[in-house]
């Protein structure tokens, strides 16, 4: 892509897909924008018309909004932290010449193939259930009182479920990147006197900077709109404790039948996602250039 000519040819070549993607995105966005300025409640379809910023004001001043915003950010941040840190550790372990490595790899990847709804149900009923769950059984076996996860640590429970789902993704990407680490480089470091810890921090981590960036970007996009897990387990509760922006929009639209308000919420979510993405790109984009 060095010469001007090749750049132009490249632009022409990608134009159709860019235009298609643009339409794909812009039509629903346009409709949402339109509805967000309308009074449009399914319970009251006769009262319609332009209301300006009213829907936005209502959504933003809704006492639930700040809580949902904070919950969203905590959820995204915590899941990112868990998946990246654990992902690196597991990837490094998988890279060791251990017995039955193929099987272990398969096990690690498996959660990614399970639908969010299903995995949330499994966690809710088989693992975290305060009476019949596996965790409760462990606690009782140890003579402790079982934890009622969804009552006492609802957000943490959601975080654990979502992190469990995204860990394979992070592990897979990081593991693949690890395998491209040059063997001679490792031997050079060994001869230069780098122990396992120096090797990890001086060679492995810098090598993983790029894939980590990719993992963070990809996960953030999806984590901002976590929904199924919340719907299946806590319904956003107790109270507002596990309501994130996506769930708040849902609550507006389907619980209150307020299409206009939900559209405004959706637009707010899009703007929020862009703000987060902007900071993320600034924060980690440097890594992608080098």
């Amino acid at each position, binding site marked *: 892509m060095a010469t001007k000519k090749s750049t132009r040819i490249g632009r022409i070549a990608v134009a159709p897909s860019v235009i298609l993607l643009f339409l794909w995105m812009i039509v629903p966005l346009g409709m949402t924008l339109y509805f967000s300025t309308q009074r449009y409640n399914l319970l009251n379809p006769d009262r319609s018309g332009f209301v300006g910023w009213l829907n936005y004001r209502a959504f933003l001043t809704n006492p639930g909004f700040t809580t949902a915003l904070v919950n969203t950010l905590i959820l995204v941040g915590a899941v990112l932290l868990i998946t990246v840190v654990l992902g690196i550790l597991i990837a490094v372990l998988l890279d060791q010449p251990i017995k039955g490595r193929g099987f272990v790899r398969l096990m690690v990847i498996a959660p990614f193939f399970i639908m969010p709804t299903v995995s949330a149900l499994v966690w809710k009923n088989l693992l975290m259930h305060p009476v019949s769950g596996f965790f409760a059984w462990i606690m009782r076996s140890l003579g402790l009182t079982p934890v009622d996860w969804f009552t006492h640590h609802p957000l943490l429970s959601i975080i654990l479920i979502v992190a469990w789902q995204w860990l394979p993704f992070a592990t897979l990407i990081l593991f693949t990147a690890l395998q491209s680490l*040059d063997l*001679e*480089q490792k*031997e*050079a*470091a*060994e*001869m*230069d*006197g*780098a122990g396992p810890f*120096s090797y990890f921090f*001086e*060679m492995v981590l*810098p*090598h993983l*900077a790029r894939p980590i960036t990719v993992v963070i970007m990809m996960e953030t996009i999806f984590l901002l709109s976590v929904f199924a897990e919340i719907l299946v387990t806590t319904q956003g509760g107790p109270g507002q404790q596990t309501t994130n922006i996506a769930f708040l929009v849902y609550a507006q639209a389907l619980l209150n039948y307020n299409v206009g308000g939900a559209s405004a919420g959706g637009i707010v979510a899009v703007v929020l996602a862009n703000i987060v993405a902007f900071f993320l790109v600034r924060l980690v984009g440097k890594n992608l250039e*080098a």
Partner: protein
Amino acid sequence: MGSIRLENVSKSFGETAVIPSIDLDIEDGEFVVFVGPSGCGKSTLLRLVAGLEDTTGGRILIDGKDMTDTPPSKRGLAMVFQSYALYPHMSVYRNIAFPLRMAGVDKAEIDRKVREAARVLNLTDYLDRRPGQLSGGQRQRVAIGRAIVRAPTAFLFDEPLSNLDAALRVGMRLEISELHQSLGTTMIYVTHDQVEAMTMADKIVVLNKGRIEQVGSPLTLYRNPKNLFVAGFIGSPKMNFVTGEEAAKRGAATIGIRAEHIALAPEAGPWHGTIGVVEHLGSDTFFHVTVDGVGPLTVRAGGEAAYGHGARVFLRPDESKIHRFDAAGQAL
């Protein structure tokens, strides 16, 4: 001090014995070249010395101390890899400083040593660059810089020049030889290029299928090869080998004669042949001659020698320079 001694060293990967058993003495300050065809076990032998592979049997002594089971970083050796193995995310400065940092040397001392090495290797202007922004020759020098700052007891090179183009290779060959002169440190150098071996070595170790065929100075190997393999491997162009009647006449299964020990004569000589391809190098001319009853021979003559393709010539071998080998390929 950097003497290295291999006693009965062997190495197998699973069932295959790559190195059956090797004994070798390397004196302090020597420039030793391991040379041999691809796959003969040169790299493996070097990696055994470095500690990057475990020996299957035998002992490795460095400076008289048994280091067979010592980890690589504790052997006091520095290695330059074929791929250079530079750390891509670090600047040239940090690459060269890395072994010192790992050894816990203080900052001022590191800075002094890195700048000194950079000065010696002409890298001062590139200290802030990343390896990806350097040419092949410069990367090579960074790899050498990273090796010399540690002041190792010996340097190990594994085909360090094979990624460079021909002109640069000649230049770097000289630089490494000069480095050896000025540091006086033991160097073990692996190559499959016999020209590199001849030009750089104090001592050449010719390897074949994991065995040492012969050890000696370049000229010893050139003048007195112990067997057919060494005779054919050392020297360019390859030594001419003749079997059959001509060999039997001289009491050998095979005789060998180098291109420069055959003279072309217009009128008379013991052999008679037809000139095929002629290679003019300016200073020398190589004639590929098909000799009646002997076979194809390469003959070296001065730059002025002027015989064309298809010309009939007489040839006179220098009888005192003919090497004789028995049926097993050993020199007689």
